[in-house]
């Protein structure tokens, strides 16, 4: 039954997208590891890591698209869930360092020794076990989203008010994680990782493995999103997006639907953060900055909100140009990003994928009607103006 559902979920366009993503996921590591250096087709390791980072961003964008594109919740605080997932992973990686730290303490991470802490805080317990840490990657953002969402949706905080308090949420976490006595490394965050699941994080093979994991995570989460939005529940979500009061009057418990999709999205963001951290090698409170969360929204807007494919595409595109701009023309990047926000909202409200889809549908309808007309009577009709 599951497979049949999967097939129904996968129509032609989504199928092409998944196949493409799968091909990239498998091809890039092969080109990195199997093709000798110096060859035209060789992909250097730094590029693999960079693309792996883009993929985690794509996953984050996917999670934002799920709540914003399909449920109308504009979250300006998804970076918080991303960073929390990242911190959970970072804590696991810190515990894996063991005695190889600068101070060589078998239990305490370096920064705790530095701060003269005598024992591990209780919330660090269990993070030496991979299964527990990976569970926390889902649970911590999920619980925060549940508590926050339960309060917010129950009292019908909507629209810009919700956006602003999500921003306040991530801002509060930013301030909190900057404190040294929070026990998360303060300003410097967590870094100097050595091993993940017994593999050295600096190794080419580990990096390729992380890339594959990121690619697979994007594919799986894409399919989950697709499944959710195509289901009956997804239709209710869209109804909530377009007319929340009306949906409520029709008898749906709007807040339950919103809460479900909100928590799901937060968990996906957490996974993205967890995959991000071992690839960039650091997690610090800067990830909580409200500006980061807003940037995610523009990735989705560029690609096209409510399209899922667009979110992935937008994240990769914008981040690729960011990498290119900040290297080639560092002063121009913020102008370009700012202009992107303005231009996309003014002239491309549906994003790239949305606009292409719209044009395509319009073209197809026009052709179809032209054919119908041609079939009914021989005289060609003038094309309707666009």
């Amino acid at each position, binding site marked *: 039954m599951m497979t049949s559902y999967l097939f129904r979920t996968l129509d032609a366009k989504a199928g092409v997208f998944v196949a493409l993503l799968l091909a990239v996921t498998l091809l890039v590591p092969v080109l990195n590891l199997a093709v000798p250096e110096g060859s035209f087709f060789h992909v250097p390791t730094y590029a693999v890591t960079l693309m792996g980072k883009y993929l985690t961003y794509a996953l984050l964008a996917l999670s934002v698209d799920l709540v914003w594109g399909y449920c109308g919740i*504009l979250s*300006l605080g998804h970076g918080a869930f991303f960073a929390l997932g990242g911190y959970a992973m970072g804590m696991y990686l810190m515990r894996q360092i063991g005695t190889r730290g600068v101070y060589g303490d078998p239990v305490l991470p370096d920064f705790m020794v530095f701060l003269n802490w005598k024992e591990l805080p209780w919330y660090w317990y269990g993070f030496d076990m991979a299964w527990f840490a990976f569970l926390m990657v889902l649970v911590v953002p999920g619980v925060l989203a549940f508590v*926050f969402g339960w*309060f*917010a949706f*129950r*009292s*019908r*905080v*909507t*629209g*810009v*008010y919700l*956006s*602003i*308090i999500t*921003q*306040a*949420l991530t*801002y*509060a976490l930013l*301030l*909190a994680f*900057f*404190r040294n006595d929070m026990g998360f490394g303060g300003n410097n965050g967590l870094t100097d990782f050595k091993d993940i699941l017994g593999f050295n994080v600096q190794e080419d093979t580990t990096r390729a493995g992380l890339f594959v994991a990121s690619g697979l995570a994007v594919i799986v989460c894409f399919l989950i999103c697709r499944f959710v939005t195509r289901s009956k529940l997804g239709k209710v979500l869209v109804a909530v997006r377009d007319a*929340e*009061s009306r949906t409520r009057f029709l008898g749906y418990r709007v807040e339950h639907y919103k809460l479900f999709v909100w928590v799901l999205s937060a968990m996906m963001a957490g996974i993205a953060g967890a995959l991000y951290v071992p690839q960039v090698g650091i997690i610090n409170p800067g990830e909580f900055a*409200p*500006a980061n969360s*807003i940037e995610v*929204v*523009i990735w989705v*807007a560029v690609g096209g909100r409510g399209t899922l494919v667009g979110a992935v595409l937008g994240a990769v595109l914008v981040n690729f140009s960011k990498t290119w701009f900040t290297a080639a023309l560092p*002063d121009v990047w*913020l*102008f370009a*990003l*700012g*202009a*992107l*926000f*303005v231009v*996309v*909202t*003014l002239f491309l*409200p549906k994003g790239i994928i949305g606009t292409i889809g719209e044009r395509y549908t319009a073209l197809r309808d026009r052709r179809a009607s032209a054919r119908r007309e041609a079939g009914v009577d021989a005289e060609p009709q003038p094309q309707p103006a666009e």
Partner: protein
Amino acid sequence: MIFRKPVAMSFLKTFLALFCLLTVAMGPVRADDSHEALRPLVNELASGKYDDTERQIQALVASGDPVVASTLQALRAGDLYVRKADGLVFIARKAGKGFALTDPLTGADAGEVAKRDIDKIKVNNKLRRVIDASLGSLTLLSSDPTVRLAAAQAVFKAGDPEVLDVLETALAKETDDDVRVVMEQARAAALLNSDRGDAEKLDAIETIASAGNRDALSLLIGLRSATQGPVSEAADTAIRRIEKSLALWDNAQNVWYGLSLGSVLLLAAIGLAITFGVMGVINMAHGEMVMIGAYVTFVVQEIIRGSAPWLFDYSLFIALPLAFLVSGAIGVGVERFIIRFLYGRPLETLLATWGLSLILQQAVRSLFGPTNREVGNPAWMSGAFDLGQLTITYNRMWIVVFAMLVFAGLMLVLKRTSFGLFTRAVTQNRRMAASMGIRTPWIDALTFGLGSGIAGIAGVALSQIDNVSPNLGQGYIIDSFMVVVFGGVGNLWGTLVGAMTLGVVNKFLEPYAGAVLGKILVLVFIILFIQKRPRGLFALKGRAVEA
């Protein structure tokens, strides 16, 4: 019984040293032949035993000439030397390999010599005490009331019993009432450390308790632990009284800081409240309007520094209208070219204005550089004054006043002008207002301009207390949103109450939770508050439909 507190004593010495530096600095100006009469006395310091030196010091003090103070201070610090060649006495300070000589009476430079050409004039502890006492009396008997006041304050902090006699002489001659009060307290402080009778000491405790500040408290705490019997008990009661009043003053201080922070928040948020209230538009570039206002102040001050320095004290008054116009014009432009096309899509407006804020920040960064720019305080905004135990800085005070003026002015515009009437009509019911013939697009543009303009003049004020950098606005944007969301939309009183509440709550939480945790608690509090009243403290009443 004599007991000294090293901290207080060292304070006295620091003060006296500063005072001496002052007299040294003033020395050359006042250098005339009258000092020359003292020269034989000064030169004699180099000869004889310690007892002779003590007599010479007393003779110098008896001359009553303030210029003696620097010589004595140098003697005390071991900086007074005699030149072997001619037996003349100089103040010598190490300079390079040798010593730089200064004439003790005129302050004039007397060249450099090698170490072997001069001898140090030695002092012992007894001499040092004599010098300390005589320095106090030199300043306490000065003809300048501010010098007397400062000397009395120093004695009060130090509580040195050796100046008691001088102090009583000074007190008898004192004519200035302000100085007299401080001298009374200083006398009480000195008396407590002397060996006088208990009855006098009890009186002295009363006098000190009436001062009611922290110095009095530390003085009495020292006394309580060092004495027994009635004096200690009296000190104990006095301590409790002072502590009680100090706690009260602490609260007053917190309220004042809170109001000051609240005014800053009010200035930053009030423009936002207008645009959000009227148009339902979240302007993420609002902070950048504040930043532009601050940079206008910077530019105005630069021009004034270059071409008309005498105008500097009025620079803020010139900057205010300019900042309003510049920010307001940018605001109108933004409304006409961007926001106009996004009405009914508040979330998209949020994104577009965020993009705009990035562009404005980067533009300012390219024009003025990424570092902080120096914006000076005019004379009337620097300094501070005491109100009871509160220290109130002028710039904070003027910003509170300014915020209130802006608020009042805005209220006046909204309640008493036809533009205000139209604005309120559009806020309450856009379509009805349009049906009555109000040109709502026009009102939108003007309101946006007004909101941005007010952000600009907020920037002028903030330039006085904050770093002027391209990131200036970002620091305020989240706080301003919190104020608007907390206070409620479409009602300026809500913004006022919201800003002041958040300011005061923040400052009261800070001592217990620390600045950062206090801020987090406030944010959490607002997030919870929104649950209870999703439309803020002062929500507009009416049959408003959700957007």
